[in-house]
């Protein structure tokens, strides 16, 4: 529905191309209607914004691509085509580096685990020997003492019989 102002709003929109009669009609209305004056001011601001806004050009590196005389279907293109390749190569290098780091890490961890296992085994053997020796400490002491005494007795007996043998030879010789 056209209200009273809409007719004049329409005139305001095409103010540059009004006839003399329309121009006078609008002028007369604007002297009476604050609403349309305000509308006209705002429209001028909007119109200025639109007419002043320059056409936006694509980025300097942007080209519409062709392949064998055919336009290539759209894909996101970078201003610098090498960017994608560079990102790919860097990504690949990072992946390789990460893998190498993981492998190195794995080797180190394996070595550490193995060394720890060996140490634990040695410790276990040592502990077993210690425990065994501790268990047999009394028989070991008695046996040892007995062995030493027996060795003394045997040794003394041997020396004694050697002396007797020597003495009997001396008598026979004399």
């Amino acid at each position, binding site marked *: 529905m056209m209200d009273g102002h809409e007719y004049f709003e329409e005139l305001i929109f095409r103010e540059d191309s009004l006839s003399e009669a329309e121009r006078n009609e609008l002028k007369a209305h604007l002297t009476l209607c604050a609403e349309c004056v305000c*509308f006209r001011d705002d429209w001028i601001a909007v119109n200025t914004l*639109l007419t002043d806004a320059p*056409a*936006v050009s*694509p980025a300097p590196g942007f080209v519409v*691509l062709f392949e064998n005389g055919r336009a290539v279907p*759209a894909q996101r293109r970078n201003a610098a085509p090498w960017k994608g390749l560079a990102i790919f190569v860097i990504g690949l290098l990072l992946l390789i580096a990460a893998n190498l780091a993981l492998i190195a890490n794995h080797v180190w961890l394996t070595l550490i685990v193995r060394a720890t296992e060996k140490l634990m085994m040695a410790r276990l053997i040592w502990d077993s020997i210690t425990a065994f020796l501790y268990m047999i400490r009394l028989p070991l002491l008695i046996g040892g003492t007995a062995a030493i005494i027996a060795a003394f007795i045997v040794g003394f007996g041997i020396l004694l019989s050697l002396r007797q043998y020597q003495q009997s030879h001396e008598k026979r010789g004399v």
Partner: protein
Amino acid sequence: MRQTFPTEIIDRVRNGDSCAFAAVVDSFRTSVYNLCYRMLNGNSGDAEDAVQEVFVKVWRNIDKYDERRTFSTWVLSIATNHCIDQIRKRRLPTVEIDETMEEVIPDRIPSPKRIVAEREQAEQVRILLDGLSEVDRAIIILRYWDDLSDREIGSAVGLSEAAVKSRLFRARKQLVGFYRQAQEQAVMEAA
């Protein structure tokens, strides 16, 4: 007034001449990009994709071009319909204005103050256009940046001249409304 595009170039494109097509691209690159950029919320990546697709369509459909129509209007109608389809498909979210505004090549080195003012203006334009429906937005862009007549706009968006007139009136009124809202918001934020 728009110049008519040389018919011999169009004929060469019809015969598969890619050099002639490069001339078509070169002639309409900026107007197609500007249309796509402003239709697609000021997103330069989307605009570049759209431009590429629009020219693919131009190449593929060149045989359907009716010489009674202005060639530029035909190219812009492909671009307009492509953007409208894109918006309807994706229901584009609003995004911040990006760096592409710097691509408007200045005649001289602008002062920082001028850069700020230009960015603010560009943002205001984007906000105004984003408020409109996709068809109304296309009508405004074709009128303001491509200087098409009501009849040509109608031919580009598939509407009668009368419908374009009526929509143009409604869109302009809406733009005033959006402008007022933005002003009120700016005043409230400043307070």
